Each structure stands twice: as structure tokens, then as C-alpha cells.
């Protein structure tokens, strides 16, 4: 019997042939590992500093990447910062994928009134530039870790919903949905068995591209002081406090931004590779 392979196995094989995607996946793996293993990987305590050690350049007395304005080791803070920054970048997308994706599938599958109500509401939120909406909501709510996450989730729900709705509306027209209805199955059973598996591809590809944007935006919110509060190590927050010191140790101050950039690019690469492997047109 010849080996039969499923869709996801094929996607995995194509993904592995994509050098950019592999690079992105490798970088992300390193970042995630560093975040998880922070207590073992970080050379210093991220919250321990000293006045004498303030703002030292690269390589100063064992501080490979220098120290910040309170004399804390930059490398250790960057490693610990990955924890909050990654969580802040990924959590809103996960939330938006579940809520927006779910709404989109329901709207796309049932059409008519359900579709009209959901999509018109989404159109309104779509009519805001994403940065503005995130800042406005987080700012109005007061600006804390939870506020930032809620704001970003709200920002990502409409585009996610649109992607899911479009994909579902396309699948809904196919004969196998008709055939499933002809067996007497109800809407939920058809969605569970026949729709989700067929719209998951575009939804996941889009979600992975959103993570890249979400990393930038969530770091931006903490840069503005609208998310994580000190002394928690977080890349966006570190960047905003270090900006005042660019005349002392310019390149040390640029490090947190570089971390944000590398993570964001890695997610972009990953998402491009996924998109190509799944043959999703964007």
C-alpha cells in the first residue's frame, strides 16, 4: 500500500524547502528557548543593578551588551524581556483568532442576516487606522498590561474576521457542503467537520502575519507607557526609558529595538513560508 499523506504533511514538506521560513523558525526557536530558559541562560539578575554600573558600553566587566540607566545587565534584561514581549505579541493574535475567526466563520457560513450584522460592525472598526485604534483604546482604558492586550485584541478582531469570512464563504459554495447538508447534518456539525479544516490554512497564515504586526504594535504601546509598567523587563518599555540616554551609550540604547525587529522579521519569514507552503494567496 503506497504511503498516503494528508494535507498538513504536504504543507510541512514544502515549508521545509523554504530557506527563509526555516531561518525565521530557527530564530524564533532561539528566542523562545531563551525566554523559557531565562533563569539559566541570563548571566545576571535582570533587576539587579548599581549606580556605579550605570550606562556602561558593550563588554564592560562581563556585561556583554553593556548596562542600562540603572546599571542592570542589558543581555539579561533582553532575555527576560523576551518573555513579556513575546506573550504581549502573541496573546492578542491568539485571542483575535479565536474570537474574530469564530465570528467570521459563523458570518461566512450562515450568510444573510448574521453576516450583515457581524460584517457591518467589523467595517466600523476597520475604518480606524490600527495604531490609532490601539492607542486610543489602551489610552482611554488607562494603560496597563491588560489594557494593552485588550486593545490589541480588539484591533485584530476585524481583519481576522474578514479573512475567516471570505475563506468560509468560498468553502460554503462547494458541493461537499451541500452533500453534507444532504445527509441531514446540522450547521454546527458541518462547521466542525467540513468548514474548519478547510479555512484553517488561510486563517493560520494570516494569524502568523498578524503576530509580526502585533509584536511591533505591542512594543509600541509599551514604548508609549500604555502597556507593561516598570520595572518589568520588556523591549518596548526598555527602548522608551533608554531613549533619554542615547548621548551616553547610543548603541546600547538601540538594542531593545533590534530585538523587536528580529522577532518581527522572524514571524514575517515564518508567515511567508507558511503562506507559500499552504498556497494561500495574499
Amino acid at each position, binding site marked *: 500500500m503506497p504511503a498516503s499523506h494528508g494535507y498538513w504533511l504536504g504543507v510541512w514538506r514544502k515549508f521545509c524547502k523554504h530557506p527563509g521560513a526555516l531561518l525565521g523558525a530557527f530564530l524564533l526557536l532561539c528566542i523562545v528557548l531563551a525566554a523559557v530558559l531565562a533563569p539559566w541562560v541570563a548571566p545576571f539578575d535582570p533587576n539587579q543593578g548599581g549606580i556605579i554600573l550605570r550606562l556602561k558600553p558593550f563588554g564592560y566587566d562581563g556585561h556583554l551588551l553593556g548596562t542600562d540607566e540603572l546599571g542592570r545587565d542589558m543581555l539579561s534584561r533582553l532575555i527576560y524581556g523576551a518573555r513579556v514581549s513575546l506573550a504581549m505579541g502573541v496573546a492578542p493574535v491568539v485571542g483575535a483568532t479565536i474570537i474574530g475567526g469564530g465570528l467570521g466563520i459563523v458570518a461566512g457560513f450562515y450568510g444573510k442576516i448574521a453576516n450583515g450584522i457581524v460584517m457591518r*460592525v467589523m467595517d466600523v472598526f476597520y475604518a480606524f487606522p490600527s495604531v*490609532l485604534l490601539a492607542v486610543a483604546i489602551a489610552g482611554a482604558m488607562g494603560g496597563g498590561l491588560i489594557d494593552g492586550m485588550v486593545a490589541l485584541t480588539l484591533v485584530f478582531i476585524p481583519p481576522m474576521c474578514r479573512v475567516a469570512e471570505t475563506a468560509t464563504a468560498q468553502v460554503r459554495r462547494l458541493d461537499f457542503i451541500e452533500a453534507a447538508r444532504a445527509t441531514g447534518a446540522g450547521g454546527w456539525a458541518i462547521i466542525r467537520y467540513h468548514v474548519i479544516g478547510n479555512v484553517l490554512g488561510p486563517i493560520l497564515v494570516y494569524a502568523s502575519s498578524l503576530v509580526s504586526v502585533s509584536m511591533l504594535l505591542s512594543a509600541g504601546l509599551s514604548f*508609549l507607557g500604555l502597556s507593561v509598567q516598570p520595572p518589568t523587563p520588556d523591549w518596548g518599555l526598555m527602548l522608551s526609558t533608554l531613549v533619554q540616554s542615547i548621548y551616553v551609550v547610543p548603541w546600547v540604547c538601540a538594542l531593545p529595538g533590534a530585538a523587536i525587529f528580529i522577532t518581527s522579521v522572524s514571524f514575517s519569514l515564518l508567515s511567508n513560508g507558511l503562506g507559500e507552503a499552504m498556497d494561500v494567496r495574499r
Partner: protein
Amino acid sequence: MLGIFRRLALAFPIAVGVSVVCFALVYIAPGDPLETVVPSDATAATIAVIKHAYGFDKPLAIQYLIWLGRVLHGNLGISIATNRPVSLEVGEALVNTLRLVALAMPAALIIGYAMGVAAARYPGRMLDRIVSGLAMFGISLPNYWVGVVLVIVFAVQWPLLPATGMAPIAPGSIGMFNWSDLRFMILPAISLALIPTGIIARSTRAAVLDVLSQDFVLTLRAKGLDEEAITRHVLRNALPQVIAVVALQFGYLMGGSILVETVFSWPGTGYLLGYAIQNRDVPLLQGIVLVLSMIFVVTNLIADLLQVRVDPRLRRG
């Protein structure tokens, strides 16, 4: 004509929805919305007067209509922090943001469009890969961080340009055409232009490739047209998609420059928004968000209408 009216009719409910969201911002702010308009040292009697004047004692729907009526008359309330009319504050900031965008947007358009067309001419080749890579970098770069790096390079390491701020502008001047004004704008404009450049390059490439794959191009080739004439046809047909993207990016820049403006202390709308948030100045926050999102709605509408003008297929329905 039908298409134009339809699009206007579609934009209207969205504008109403946007105004509802802006109105609601006051209510997601922690604490009593009344506190946002009442000075902290007000007496009980003053509070009662203000409460009545602002209609806070009425049902929400009525409050919304009262608020909308004020807004439509150009009254966005008084800023708590500066005690000046919000409309005035937003208007001044808007001019400054517009100056930055007026510098960043054409640059993004020209560079992005050229990159996109060049990449589409040689799909899959080295040039195409470089352009696609650059476009992805432009989109994934945190533009506020690029601002910081630019300041480090051009203001700290080599002090060529000012790090932050804006030169005082003479009344009546747009302050874009002389070096003393312009030098403040170069770094923020570059930071702002990054994302739109990447996105315009990417979508131009996609649009041109899409047109190139259509059958009529083959017909043109078969008719013996030279490459230059074919390129003209292709670019014309790719235009509607590019226009839509450019207009969208313009709207994003107008409403999304808060981070870059904060880095450079550039007194535009984004900077003002940051100021409003820091000072818990809800009327100011609401006014800025309302004005910027309405600009976004209108640019989207204009993009739509321009597309209709360029692409005759969209004129019906």
C-alpha cells in the same frame, strides 16, 4: 454615477459607526465620565450645572445625539490640560502632521512604486528577491526604533541634523521649502516613510504581475507592440490597485504617526494624542481620534472613487 452614489451611501453608516465608537471612548475610560470634564476643585453646585449642560443626566442615546450635534458644529469640547478648544489644538497639530506626511508620502510612493515595477519586470530573479526582502524589512521594522537609530547616527555620532523638535514657523509659511525648517523633518519623514514604501512596493509588484498574467498582454505582444508600449498598458491597468493602497497608506500615516512623532517630539496629532493620554485629557483624546478616523474614512472613500474613475468596470454596482 450609480457606483459613486452607492459608495457614498456605504461610507455614511461607517462614519456614523466611527462616531459612536469615538463617543464610547469616554465610557471605557475608568471612573465617572463626568470627571473628565469637571475641574477637580469644582463645587457640588458647579458639578450639577456642568452635568446638566453636558446632558450627563439624560439617556445614553440622547447624550450621543447632543454630542454629535456639538461635533457637527465644530465644537469638540475644551481640553482639560490646556484649557483651549480641542478643535483648535487638533487643527494646529494636524497641520504639522500633514507637513510630515506631505514629505514622507511622495517619497514612499516614488521609491515603492519604482521598486515594485522593477521587481515585477524580473519576477523570481535577484532584483525581485532583493526588493521583496527590502519590502519585508520595511514592514517588519519598528519605525519608532528606526527613528531612534537615525537620531543616533545623524544627530549623535555625526551631528548633522537636529534630534528632535521643530523650528518655529513664520505665519503664513508652510515651512517646507527652506533648509532651517526642512532639516527637522528629514529624520521623522524617513522613519514614517518606511512602512508605506514596503507596502507600496509589495502591492505594486503584485498588481503588475497580476496584469502581466492576463491574456490581453499576450494579445498586445502578438500584435507586435514594443515592450515600452506594453509596459504603458500594463502600468495603466495596475493603477487602480496601486491607488487604493496609496490612499490607504496616506490614511494610516495621518493616524498612525504617534510613535514616530513621540520619538522626535514633533508637535503633530500623534504627539498631541500622547500628551492627551499622559494628562488623562479625555475630551482631547476623543477629539483627536474622531478627527483622524474621519480623515481615514474620507481617504478610503476618495480611494474608492478614484478607483471607479480609473477602472470603468467598477462604475456599475
